[in-house]
């Protein structure tokens, strides 16, 4: 999928809308908001579906563009007990429409639709998914076929998909992203974004160094105690290099030695018995004198085909990444300077001058990257030009760019075994860990399988009493008669389920550690107790967690949950797994 080009809207002063969204604009800025307002979200709802509605609530409030609910159920007495967006008069009416009515009140700007059809019918024609930018699928679906079909289609079309369960005290969600999902603005901790480039100083910085440290020994105590620490480091680096073949301290021992050299420069015959600026310099030796390197996230971006071969259809991201890659290559491995300075002991005039030197350098680096971008645009015939602000944001955060490799989520399948590939090896040790929440994930997987079994039985034999059938099936899961799990150590696959409902399915391998098995059994028991019902409070929490990740995916900002999160509401604990 080609990335949509996001242009921040032209600000006409703070309109009522901007005022309304002020508190969130401070987290994801105008471009994040624009992305959110362009998003079209589809909710395929199942069961009591409260979690789906709670997610939507959290997307409607910040102003998602539009959403569509697919749900054919009518409102029951039970819904009124768990779904906040229904009232007495909704009883017996079409649930999606009733919910939409109340959801619309939360934000008149959001376009809201409801489709009265089952997910099964919807899945028969999955090309209808194309028109949405993000899919929320709530499980368990009526059967595994539906689930498989939708996930497959979303994967093929590179539409982000969230698969969600919420039952009793437990919940789970998995995120299926396109194979290459870059995030430029990961919002790193400001302290970690400082690149002082001390090992590659430029003329203006060296000139300033010279004026400040020329007569170091003759400076007054006050002036000596106010030399900015990074100038102290540069000064002693020059001294060091003079006796070390022009090389900077390279390893830990050399750095320790260098640190001692810096410390020896401090004056101690003053009233404080030391100097704060020299302390700052010594403390910064280990972290500030590293040769330039790039993060693994950025390396992956540089190595990607899209980065090396740009075309007229390339997304902004790749055009800029390509330009930064050029910068990196032509400057011996350094990145554009972010330009920010840490706080330090200094006279304010020196600090401001230093700030200006860094800013000026950041601007000239940005100008160089921009030139490359413009010439690439011309070369491949690309229009309209990428906004300067987008290039600048990339330059500032280049080191922290993250490339997420989305992959199809593992769902219970009816046609084939789940292909666990390398994941089985990674997850097996996790299963051996006491207190691991991973069994929770498998319990939900088993629930999907169990649902699939019920569906088949119902199709073969119309039971006179639905409730009785449910009881029988629930009993079978708890007793282990429907063996729900693979044992990772021995088999990385779910076995093929039996089609014959009259006989117990073929026994499945089980967990080999008692703890994992116990956790699993407890979760299954709890799921059975919940009887596929939701607790509002757990649905609300899960709705918050999922909506937060949805916003990150839509805005392409912040670091995402990659790719599965489970929540245990009894222990108030979450765990994130890459499955």
């Amino acid at each position, binding site marked *: 999928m080609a990335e949509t080009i996001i242009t921040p809207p032209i600000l006409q002063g703070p309109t009522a809308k901007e005022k309304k969204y002020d508190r969130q604009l401070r987290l994801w800025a105008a471009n994040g908001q624009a992305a959110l307002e362009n998003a079209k979200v589809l909710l395929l709802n199942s069961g009591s579906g409260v979690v789906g509605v709670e997610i939507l609530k959290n997307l409607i409030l910040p102003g998602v563009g539009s959403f569509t609910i697919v749900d054919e159920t009518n409102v029951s007495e039970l819904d009124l007990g768990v779904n906040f967006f229904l009232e007495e008069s909704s009883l017996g009416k079409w649930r999606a429409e009733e919910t939409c009515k109340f959801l619309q009140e939360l934000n008149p700007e959001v376009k809201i639709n409801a489709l009265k059809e089952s997910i099964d019918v919807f899945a028969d024609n999955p090309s209808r998914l194309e028109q949405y930018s993000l899919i929320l699928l709530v499980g368990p679906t009526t059967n595994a076929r539906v689930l498989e079909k939708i996930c497959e289609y979303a994967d093929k079309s590179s539409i982000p998909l969230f698969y969600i369960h919420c039952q009793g005290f437990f919940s789970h969600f998995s995120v299926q992203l396109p194979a290459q999902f870059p995030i430029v603005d990961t919002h790193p901790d400001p302290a970690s974004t400082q690149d002082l480039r001390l090992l590659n100083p430029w003329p203006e910085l060296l000139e300033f160094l010279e004026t400040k440290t020329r007569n170091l020994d003759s400076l007054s105590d006050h002036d000596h105690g106010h030399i900015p620490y990074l100038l102290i480091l540069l000064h002693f680096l020059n001294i060091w290099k003079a006796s070390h073949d022009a090389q900077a301290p390279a390893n830990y021992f050399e750095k320790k030695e260098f640190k001692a050299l810096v410390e020896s420069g401090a004056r101690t015959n003053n009233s404080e018995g030391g100097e704060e600026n020299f302390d700052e310099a010594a403390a910064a030796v280990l972290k500030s004198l590293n040769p330039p390197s790039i993060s693994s996230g950025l390396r992956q971006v540089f190595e990607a085909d899209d980065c090396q071969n740009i075309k007229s259809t390339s997304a902004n991201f790749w055009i800029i990444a390509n330009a930064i890659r050029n910068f990196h290559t032509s400057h011996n491995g350094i990145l554009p300077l972010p330009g920010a300075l840490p706080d330090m002991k200094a006279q304010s005039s020196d600090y401001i001058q230093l700030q200006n030197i860094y800013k000026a350098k950041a601007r000239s680096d940005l100008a160089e990257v921009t030139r490359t971008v413009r010439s690439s645009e011309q070369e491949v015939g690309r229009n309209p030009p990428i906004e300067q602000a987008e290039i600048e944001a990339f330059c500032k955060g280049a080191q922290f760019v993250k490339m997420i490799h989305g992959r199809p989520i593992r769902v219970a399948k009816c046609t084939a075994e789940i292909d666990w590939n390398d994941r089985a090896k990674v997850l097996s040790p996790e299963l051996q860990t006491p207190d691991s929440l991973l069994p929770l994930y498998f319990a939900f997987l088993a629930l999907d399988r169990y649902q699939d079994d019920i569906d088949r039985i119902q199709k073969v034999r119309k039971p006179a009493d639905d409730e009785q059938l449910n009881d029988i099936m629930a009993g079978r899961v708890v007793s282990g008669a429907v063996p729900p799990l693979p044992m990772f150590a021995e088999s990385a696959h779910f076995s093929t389920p039996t089609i014959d409902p009259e006989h117990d399915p073929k026994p499945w391998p089980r967990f080999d550690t008692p703890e994992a098995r116990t956790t699993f059994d407890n979760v299954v028991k709890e799921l059975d107790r919940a009887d596929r019902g939701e607790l509002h*409070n757990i649905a609300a929490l899960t709705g918050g967690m999922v909506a937060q990740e949805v916003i990150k995916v839509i805005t392409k900002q912040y670091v995402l949950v990659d790719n599965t999160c489970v929540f245990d509401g009894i222990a108030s604990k979450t765990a994130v797994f890459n499955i």
Partner: protein
Amino acid sequence: MGRDRFAKQSLGYLYPRIKQSRILMIGAGGIGCELLKNLVLTGFGEIHIVDLDTIDLSNLNRQFLFRQEHIKKSKALVAKESAAKFNPHIKLEAHHANIKDPQFNIQWFQSFALVFNALDNLDARRHVNKMCLAADVPLIESGTTGFNGQVQPIIKGKTECYDCSTKDVPKSFPVCTIRSTPSQPIHCIVWAKSYLFTEMFGTSDEETPEFDHSEDNENAKEIENLRQESQALNNIRQSMGSDEFARKVFDKVFKDDINRLRSMEDMWKTRKQPNALDFDGISKGASGTKPSIAQQDQKAWTVAENFTVFSDSLRRLSTRLQTSQSQTGIDTVAPVLVFDKDDEDTLDFVAASANLRSIIFGIESKSKFDIKQMAGNIIPAIATTNAMTASLCVMQAFKVMRGDIDKARMVFLERSAARVINSDTLKPPNPNCNVCGVMSSTLIVDPDRATLNDLVEDVLKSQLGYGDEFSVNNEIGTLYDPDLDDNLSKKFIDLGVKADSFLTVIDDDEENPRVNLSLAILEKTLPEDTKAVHLPKKLDIARKPKDAPAPITNGGTNGDTNGHVAASFVGTKRKRSLEDPENGQQQDNKRGKIQMPSKAVGVQDDDLVIADDSNDGAIVIDD
């Protein structure tokens, strides 16, 4: 099939107790709206909601019980109505009031099984913490900032209380930093908002919380100069409305005052000298700039643009003030304007003035958007964080109601995607806490007769055996200590010690001091022939544990027991600050206190020497 089948199934034996519980929720803002929904659908029998605040447009992106048509209405009342509409079976009671009002006394707190704090300010949080400890009612404390959230169950005698660890307090700045030697954008913003704006349009003698006067004595001469400067500025105010007004103000604050500062050579030995601005020169350059530039709030304006916004907003504000002055009678109090981050006129003026001052001092200019955040103490807030935090509150409430204190946790939400939710076991009470590490008792007082001396002599010295070294304090400050005996003959009422307020007795005995004694005042008319002050039952006050480290105090903010904000500390923190913007009680934030990030701010001059002690995150300001 009953509608509560799912809740019954999952909650088991707890469910009937939930249905019968009467609970209290304080704050109907971001967390409060979500919490109320969850409490209603969990099936709590009776829910009381207290909130002082009214609904604002900027609440609507997350406080989902409110809509456009509710703006300016009471949060508590609207929240109740909206929630009741969806679930008519629950008894809901709303109080549009300040939780510190006397009607919400200890007995009233005792009538609840559980209290939820969904507040946005330290002061109200501290108050509720104290009331819940006094009433012995479990408290679920919560707060959010952007993507971060935190939930803390507090149970008297079993867990830490809210004040067992110290909290950040709003940052204040030495007067001279703001008025004479600014070095950061925030200094200029505080100057524009709390000095210039107030002198021009507000009540100038009003005390500003951002000003720290502790260094005034050392700089007595400069403080006197500054006082005269303010006076002169105030005189200019008289010419408001005249054609020359803008020039006069501009010349005064951006030229004459700057030149005066410049002439003080000592001040600029280690700092960059400021450069005064020239009205005519800038005005000429700004002739092509339209006032509508004020709408471009994302970029830092040029000198000319700042000048244009400054003149234009000064005109707008002058007109407003004069219009309202002409409408008020002579006998009434003169109308003033108050800075409000959401009032464009006031924000434009503060943004442009702050930037002009920054330009003078060679400090980086900021965009109006950023200045709004800094001047208005805006804390980012989103629906998702509130939703999660509120649900976590209810989950902790289940544990507390089950009596599973061992399983209750301090829970955190984090921006990092590695875990989403983190938790920590609850710590036992801090024995040195000035709020819960204390002996508490009620003190029966006859309001017509009782004097402070009755307490000091009859109760503390004679009955309880205190030595000479101790102090009696209330939330305003110290009432009595060995060097402060002026109040002894005064009656409690004259000292402002009323029913349901607290006194804290701090033993300063060098050898073996007692733990602090907290006395909740209970007023009662007593027979003439009995003592006017007495304890309802005998007290055996424990001694402070030895060797335990004393908590780092924040002066007046620690336990509200003494009223002096010690300038040498600006707060320490163990976890993170809890601020839920716009939630509930807002009287503090409406005044727009500046809250600085908790990490150490830069040291660029000699005014503040800040050391970031990385061991415990304490921030200490030396003077």
